[in-house]
């Protein structure tokens, strides 16, 4: 069963690697645009993950502490960006943060700040799409946590904040780690919302998936070559993440 599961992942990846236009990987690798897009991708996905951690963990805590219908509602709202077709996600972001958007418009009129079509927009788009993964994973971790430790900490005089930072958070590390990996990977692969909300501007908002998209329009082989580079980098990063980061208990 596990093997079948693994096969489902491995076969397509094997297909990619076997049929890969290896001749194109070299040129793609040295092309400056590739490095620009790759760097931008890493920058945006990591920033999005950090933002998601900062905003998402408190949100998960709130979710885990509320009960009943309110919790279901909040959790459902949090999950929606995952369901939203990516293009519409981008449109929704434009409607909120675009120059004509709900808060984009006042922002533009008051300070002349435009969010859309900037690197910040790419980060926002990726955060919007990827953060739910973090929130849901962390909330799952919170729910299965043994709360005796938090009680013990409180009995030792630790206030909410100290309990959270010194006990809850460390005990939650595996869940946060999974969540962050999920979030980062999702952000790295993000395409639809980014192209709609942030545009496809090389060096500013053209992340790897967008570069792949553009390449695919003209020579699909180049697109595959680009993807392989993205895959290799992701693989290296994922393998590089040591188990000790996981703090498996």
């Amino acid at each position, binding site marked *: 069963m596990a093997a079948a599961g693994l096969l489902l992942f491995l076969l397509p990846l094997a297909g990619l690697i076997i049929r890969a236009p290896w001749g194109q990987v070299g040129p793609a690798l040295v092309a400056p645009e590739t490095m620009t897009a790759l760097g931008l991708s890493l920058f945006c996905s990591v920033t999005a993950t950090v933002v998601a951690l900062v905003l998402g963990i408190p949100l998960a805590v709130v979710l885990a502490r509320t009960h009943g219908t309110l919790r279901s509602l909040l959790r459902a709202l949090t999950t929606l960006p995952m369901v939203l077709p990516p293009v519409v996600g981008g449109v929704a972001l434009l409607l909120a943060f675009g120059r004509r958007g709900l808060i984009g418009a006042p922002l533009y009129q008051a300070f002349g700040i435009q969010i859309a079509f900037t690197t910040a927009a790419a980060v926002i788009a990726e955060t919007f799409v990827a953060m739910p993964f973090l929130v849901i994973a962390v909330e799952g971790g919170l729910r299965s946590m043994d709360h*005796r*430790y938090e009680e013990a*900490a409180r*009995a*030792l*005089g630790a206030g*909410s904040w100290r309990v959270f930072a*010194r006990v809850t958070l460390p005990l939650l590390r595996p869940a946060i780690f999974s969540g962050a990996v999920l979030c980062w990977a999702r952000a790295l692969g993000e395409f639809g919302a980014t192209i709609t909300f942030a545009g496809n501007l090389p060096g500013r908002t053209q992340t790897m998936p967008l570069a792949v998209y553009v390449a695919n329009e003209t020579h699909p082989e180049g697109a595959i070559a680009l993807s392989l580079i993205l895959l290799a980098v992701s693989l290296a990063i994922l393998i590089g993440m040591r188990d000790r980061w996981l*703090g498996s*208990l």
Partner: protein
Amino acid sequence: MAGIALSLHASIRVQRNGFALDVDLEVGAGETVAVLGPNGAGKTTLLRALAGLVPIDGRVELDGEVLDDSAAGRHVLTEHRRVGLVFQDHALFPHMTVLDNVAFGLRRDSSRIAREWLDRAGLADKAHAMPRELSGGQAQRVALLRTLATEPRLLLLDEPLSALDVTIRAEVRRELSRQLSGFQGVRILVTHDPLEAMALADRLVVLEQGKVVQTGSPAEVTARPRSRFVADLAGVNLLRGRGRGRHVELEGGAMLTAAEAGEGDVFAVIHPRAVALFLAKPEGTPRNVWRGRAEDLDLQGERVRVRLSGTVPLVAEVTPSAVRELHLDSGAEVWVAVKATEISVYRA
């Protein structure tokens, strides 16, 4: 800390499906109270309620400060109560070293102070071990240290010594009793060990099914048990019946003759040592003589406890040589005799 007199006034009601706790408790400054009671009596619940971890109906006041008052809607959070609660199952933080666990509750100089506590407890070599690398007893001691180090003004100990070995237990008990007499806080201790309760507590509170059934000094409580549980704790035989002059009519129907019995519902206590066993019906002074059957024998140190069934079920304590002489064995039929003067009777 010294010089400040702390005292606890608590009136606690907790309602849980199928279980209700209803306890009024007063503990004076510097007093140690041992809470005893059968499994499931509500001892842990009581401690958790005092710590503020269980919502209650009622009022808790520690040294004049109201910690809980359901009528006034007041509830001081656990972390602001300065209570120290040692859990029945230690609950050491699994992700911290032993040292960090002990240092956790300390504000200043935490690491140095924690190390001192560990040194004193002879656990210095485990300072950098993780809790999962400790044995059960080591974990329990660390949990105790962790709480004692915070110098709480209300110390709540839930079976703190149950997993300790004999040597350490005696030491920790001594250490604890030194600690306890050292500061003026209020101490409440849950234990199943009568010796521990006697050694550490000024007063016993016996809880059964969520209610206080008896309270008093160890000597008072064990001299006049008011329940099967306390009788077992004191290691004596407890019988219940109706007093009629010098006789007690037991619930089973048998008659007991005592020095004085009074009238109405009474308890009768017989020390196992006062129960004599014979092969033939004894002639002489003992006024209470029945037939009995030795159900089982239990060697306890230099004494053998014999559980007897028959007209009046009792436990007798005899010497191993008596066992040999009487050819006592499970199932043996014997005569049981108790002198009237060895039976103490008091109102139920």
